[in-house]
């Protein structure tokens, strides 16, 4: 296809670019980096912050380069004295109403505003004045909102409202008094927020961040009485390296395990093994529902943001959710039972920590259902970012670490467990096991490419043991809503649905390293991280959950069989309709 090209001049350099591109894109193609703040490709293209203003010859006023499309023969100047002065004043004004406690901010060093201040060599605030003052919302177990650091770029609002189609936060008030908040300025805990954490990924500053539990975990680690066990989710290993300046998607599993051991965890396990366990249970549950006339479609339940969404919006349809806990919860329950008994460690001396790419899991681990016989399945959830901070605090030079392996007796995981971290992965893993089981033999086909990739809703129809199994995979809550509405109207054609709250799945979870708007507009972060997971799968000796010898070991030694009474006790959970807005 011949794409129409446009020729224009930017800062005296002639550039040919695709028709439909913005001035910003065209400029970046020739190495002119126009500063931006509110711009987030395809999500927030509104031109509010005014950092990206440029001069276009023959046009009155400045043009907004992040939105303005290129035109033939356009002559653009990005750096005239007038535009530089205006841009500098805009930055000055933003800084004049921003809490400048950078040294104690979680985004120190990874803040887009800080980078601009550095780039513009801001030495003093020329237009200092009254600052907005807001109370910090840290009521929820997952997300902290500190509006004093907000610059009103509205990237979070666009993400919540347009990408996830939740709209828990919005712009409130008017003028200087405007702020980003919830209805009646309630805590996120009490409104329709699902804790997916995508807003955090969108925030250029430290106005939104996870509720940190680093200090609590350090305390447990330093307590000689406590036996601290950590597990890491599949998606963490392909993103953690980014916090240490490694290329996006680098698999740092070996270094990560070494670092965790150096930090002082008594055991380092792999949540991928928990994922295998989930597949054992979930595939079994699915087959039981198929054969026993259970509620269909069955929907996966390992994304707690999605579960909270369902509980708040589709209370009447919760029977569709698989009763399986998410992998790290299953694993946590087994650490405090199977593992504790096997190694003779008192259950109440064990502290379970999970490193997750997820924000909602911080909430999930606090759900009342997530405990067995008084023992919490998982005590603390750390995000990938928090782990990176701990590694830095522990004086570990991550880049030069040698590799280590996960600990036994639960250190083995299948490739199926690895791909849990990307959209379509849970479904593919489940199919691998379900097909083998239903067919009663080892099927050669391992990969199911139709459920891979970035599309929001993917579907396929499989022929299994003479039956048709219609499946769908969705990521992002806007897509989840579409599938749920189908079910509500009784028109869902599917038997089995995988839903993940975050667009792209866990690799793009709210707890993953935050990528700047500039990186997000030039690199497909999701694909790089997901490809890395698929590579792990491809290189795995075992690629099906039910072939993992650890599974056999656990069921033989402890749980008997999938769906058993004990399995239900430790590995399954229940759901309850929630009020969408918890207000008086």
């Amino acid at each position: 296809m011949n794409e129409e090209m446009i020729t224009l001049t930017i800062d005296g350099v002639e550039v040919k670019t695709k028709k439909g591109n913005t001035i910003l894109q065209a400029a970046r193609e020739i190495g002119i980096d126009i500063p931006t703040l509110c711009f987030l490709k395809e999500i927030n293209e509104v031109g509010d912050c005014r950092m990206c203003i440029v001069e276009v010859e023959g046009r009155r006023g400045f043009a907004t380069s992040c939105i303005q499309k290129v035109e033939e023969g356009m002559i653009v100047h990005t750096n005239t004295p007038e535009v530089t002065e205006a841009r500098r004043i805009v930055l000055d004004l933003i800084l004049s109403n921003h809490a400048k406690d950078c040294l104690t901010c979680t985004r120190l060093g990874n803040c887009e505003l800080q980078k601009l201040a550095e780039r513009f060599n801001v030495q003093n605030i020329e237009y200092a004045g009254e600052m907005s003052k807001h109370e910090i919302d840290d009521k929820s177990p997952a997300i902290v909102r500190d509006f004093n650091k907000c610059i009103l770029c509205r990237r979070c609002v666009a993400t919540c409202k347009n990408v996830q189609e939740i709209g828990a936060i919005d712009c409130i008030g008017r003028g200087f008094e405007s702020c980003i908040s919830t209805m009646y300025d309630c805590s996120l805990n009490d409104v329709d927020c699902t804790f997916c954490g995508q807003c955090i990924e969108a925030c250029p500053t430290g106005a939104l961040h996870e509720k940190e539990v680093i200090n609590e975990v350090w305390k447990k680690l330093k307590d000689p009485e406590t036996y601290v066990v950590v597990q890491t989710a599949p998606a963490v290993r392909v993103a953690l390296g980014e916090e240490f300046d490694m290329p996006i998607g680098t698999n740092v599993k070996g270094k990560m395990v070494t670092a965790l051991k150096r930090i002082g965890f008594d055991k380092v396990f792999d949540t991928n093994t928990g994922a295998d366990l989930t597949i054992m249970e979930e595939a079994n549950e699915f087959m039981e529902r198929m054969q026993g006339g259970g509620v269909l479609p069955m929907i996966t339940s390992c994304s707690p943001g999605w579960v909270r969404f369902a509980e708040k919006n589709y209370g009447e349809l919760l029977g569709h959710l698989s009763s399986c806990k998410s992998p790290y919860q299953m694993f946590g329950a087994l650490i405090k039972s199977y593992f504790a008994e096997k190694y003779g460690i008192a259950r109440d001396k064990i502290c379970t920590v999970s490193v997750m790419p997820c924000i909602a899991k911080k909430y999930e681990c606090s759900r009342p259902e997530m405990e067995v016989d008084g023992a919490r399945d998982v005590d603390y959830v750390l995000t990938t970012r928090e782990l990176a901070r701990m590694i830095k605090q522990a004086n570990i030079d991550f880049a030069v670490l040698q590799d280590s392996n996960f600990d036994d007796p639960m250190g083995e995981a299948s490739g199926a467990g690895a791909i849990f971290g990307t959209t379509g992965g849970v479904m593919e893993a489940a199919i691998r096991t379900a097909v083998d089981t239903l067919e009663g033999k080892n099927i050669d086909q391992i990969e199911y490419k139709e459920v891979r990739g970035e599309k929001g809703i993917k579907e396929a129809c499989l022929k299994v043991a003479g039956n048709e199994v219609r499946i769908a995979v969705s990521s992002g809550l806007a897509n989840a809503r579409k599938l749920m509405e189908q079910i509500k109207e009784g028109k869902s054609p599917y038997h089995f649905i995988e839903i993940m709250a975050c667009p792209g799945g866990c690799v793009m979870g709210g707890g993953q390293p935050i990528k700047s708007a500039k990186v997000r507009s030039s690199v497909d972060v999701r694909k790089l991280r997901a490809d890395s997971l698929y590579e792990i799968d491809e290189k795995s000796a075992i690629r099906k959950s039910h072939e993992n010898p650890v599974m056999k070991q656990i069921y033989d030694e402890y749980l008997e069989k999938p769906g058993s009474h004990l399995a239900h006790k430790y590995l399954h959970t229940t759901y309850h309709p929630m009020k969408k807005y918890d207000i008086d």
Partner: protein
Amino acid sequence: MKTIEQIEKIRNEKRKELELRINPEVVTQEKHILVCRGTGCTSSKSPQIIEKFREILAQKNIENVRVIQTGCFGLCAKGPIVVIRPEETFYAHVKPEDCEEIIETHIINGQKVERLLCKNMDGSIVHKLNELDFYKKQKRIALKNCGTINPEEIDEYIAFDGYKALEKVLTGMSQDDVIDVISKSGLRGRGGAGFPTGKKWSFTKMAESDQKYVVCNADEGDPGAFMDRSILEGDPHCVLEAMAIAGYAIGANQGYIYVRAEYPIAVHRLKVAIQQAREYGLLGKNIFGTDFCFDIDIRLGAGAFVCGEETALLESIEGKRGQPRLKPPYPASQGLFGKPTVINNVETLANITKIILNGAEWYASIGTEHSKGTKVFALGGNVNNVGLVEVPMGTTLREIVYDIGGGIPKGREFKAAQTGGPSGGCIPAEHLDTPIDYESLASIGSMMGSGGLIVMDDTKCMVNLAKFYLEFTVAESCGKCTPCRIGTKRMLEILEKLCSGEATEEDIERLEKLAINIKKASVCGLGQSAPNPVLSTLRYFRGEFTEHAVQKKCRTNECKKIAKIQINQDQCKACGLCQKQCPVGAIDGEGREKRTINQEKCIKCGTCIASCPFKAIK
């Protein structure tokens, strides 16, 4: 549903009946008592006046006299206004208690109630409306029917050529013909920037779409402007008819009027008018039996000045926060619900039917080279004849303020006139003779805006005035873009410093630099024009800013924090009255000593100024 013939019949019959409204020479036994039911007169009891008149007429069994509610006569300062036709007697400040006397003296005995008549500046008593100085230099096109017809009677509108333009357009003109006439007339948008209306229509007509809209911007937010409100209150059908014509020209079948909810009378009259027009088939399907269908809905604004900005207004009609959209794309290609949309303000639309009926050449013959036709101004502030005036473009400010407005009260000096409201600027005395049009106002640092024209005398502090406008902008900024959201707040903070004597000369420079950059970098018209009141006062009254900054002095004492009340020692007679009145004991001196003010104690309440029988305190 009425046919063309039926409408024509109504027109002819009704016209005969109403001839006395516009022709003082007509021979008739009938009299019409017209009572202004505009917002101003209504709030000073004109509804009770109407009731009272009717009551008395009924009591006295007088049959050939009708009492009619009308829209605004324009001279609001003299309200409540009662005009008796055909003899055109203009009664001012009428109270319900006066009705009896008016009926007795005027209606029954055929004499004038002298005490309710107005005087012109030369002291002469005015017997007829058109003899008032106020009306002499005016030319009423947009306001043609205001004060003449009952706005709640469609037949009265039809009598004065109402819906004739629509008939002409639908039965004999192509879409391009209509746009051509409007283009050639030279009509420009009356809402602010003055974009040529014909061009706007033509762009929207050319945009390809299955659905287009006509939107009437009646969100008159400029504080101190009430032209649009008066047109809607006095002649709502002329706006509806013009919208239908616009709809035909661009290919739209739906219109929306976005009107401030704070204008309850205007909203009511619009509702009545739309209902009546629908009943006559002048709105709805197959108007005048043609293929053209057009209907209109009202949407209420909810108190946001920024919604006067056209894209913010569209957002608001769509049910959202009124935050402006970036342009391009312009509404002509992507407007309401993403469809091509023409947005015109009320006054612009009020000119359309007259242009269609009288021709482009007629309209283009009025006004200046680039600004055709007339402009309605809401004249207010320190001027005698507060009210609504419509003058040909090119009339000078002096004519408006002195000849029409009757000059400044209490014989004070003219200091400045403010046009364009919070987006406009101040015009100093040196430009009093500038003929007013779009270009000339822009060249002297102001703008036409919607037509608010506030006159200020020499008791007004220009720094304080700039602060007043910035307070407004800060309160009304939508908060979307950085320069307007934070920048205007910072400007206000600097102005507050100036007004309280805490600023330095350097602050004035910082203020100016910030103002210039906010103008350039803001997203919408509100932000881009928000610094105008500051820039224009700086341009003409910089000295006053410097006085505030350097000498910490406000020459008008309007800035309370630095105001200094002083007793002129030459005029003080040591009567001691001020001392008795002063609530804080800030006045020194005993017995026959001349009094002085202790500035440390003084709270600048002004009690002493009022108490001094010798006007020695300032």
